[in-house]
């Protein structure tokens, strides 16, 4: 996603998403999160293959906020991390539609790869 297309466009107009952007949306599907939890969840889910530093994470969040895919969910402390206040982020309905559209696109690509026996051939 390179520029602000607003939350009124079609979800498909935001595709394909950058891998880091999709990872952030995936992390927010279960509910609102602050930066450190997003970063940890992505690292754990991808087994360290995608590591979001502060610049990459907040650069992507800024674009997601501008595009209306994500919104701020207020500031509060995370009891597990001390009493510093943290800003939470959550998916918008439009962000969820974009994430679903991207997941469907990726699923279709995986299906095509299976048909071509790039993957799953050992099971056939």
């Amino acid at each position: 996603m390179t520029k602000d297309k607003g939350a009124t466009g079609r979800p498909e107009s935001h595709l394909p998403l950058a891998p880091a952007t999709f990872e952030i949306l995936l992390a927010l599907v279960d509910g609102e999160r602050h930066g450190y939890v997003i970063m940890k969840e992505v690292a754990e889910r991808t087994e360290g293959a995608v590591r979001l530093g502060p610049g990459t994470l907040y650069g992507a969040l800024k674009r997601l906020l501008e595009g209306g895919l994500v919104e701020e969910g207020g500031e509060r402390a995370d009891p597990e991390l001390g009493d510093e206040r943290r800003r939470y982020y959550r998916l918008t309905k439009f962000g969820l539609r974009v994430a679903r559209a991207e997941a469907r696109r990726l699923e279709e690509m995986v299906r095509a790869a299976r048909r071509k026996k790039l993957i799953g051939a050992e099971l056939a």
Partner: protein
Amino acid sequence: MSVPTAPLFTVPGPSRPTAADRIYRLLLRAYPPVFRAEYGREMTQLFRDQCRAGDASSIGFWMIALWDVAQSAPALRVDAWRARGCESTRTLGETMKLVAMLTVLLGMFGALSSVAEGVAGGRQGFGGTFLIAVVLGAVAGALLLVAGVAALRGTPSARQMASRAALASLVVFLLARLVFGWMSIFSQLVGIALPLAILAVLRAPRWRAGAV
């Protein structure tokens, strides 16, 4: 390379800034001011979380932090320029900041990687010529870092210092190249092109006249 105990980089709590915090705040200057104002506090907070979870005294940790800044800051600068409609009167000043920012990052990266290469080379029994080249490389990197920081300050005396440091870095780097012939193309590009770029921008007519 890990240092067993490094009190400068420990994270005692949210209220006291550590040396690592201060270095990271300096790195944050690579980002556009508007972005920094909006996300700087959160980025520093996240960086502190990373320090708690990782080893902030290791070179690897800082390499990753530098790579993150080098990867994300230029794109955000470009976004900021676009948002402002690429005002031509500010282009030179912004170019200067971008070159200075790259100089700071790559100077720090060059100095750190020279130290890492020196340690690795020392373990493998490389000779004196290699070590001299590594030391010269580290000095050239440190001079680039000084040039970048001075250029970011932007005062006339700081710009003069930046010019001198960039020139000295170029000379020291060429000396290193003469002492030890083998050097990666990336190192040569950074060591030669970056000081030349900073000298060129500093000597641009509008810059000399004092317009920022």
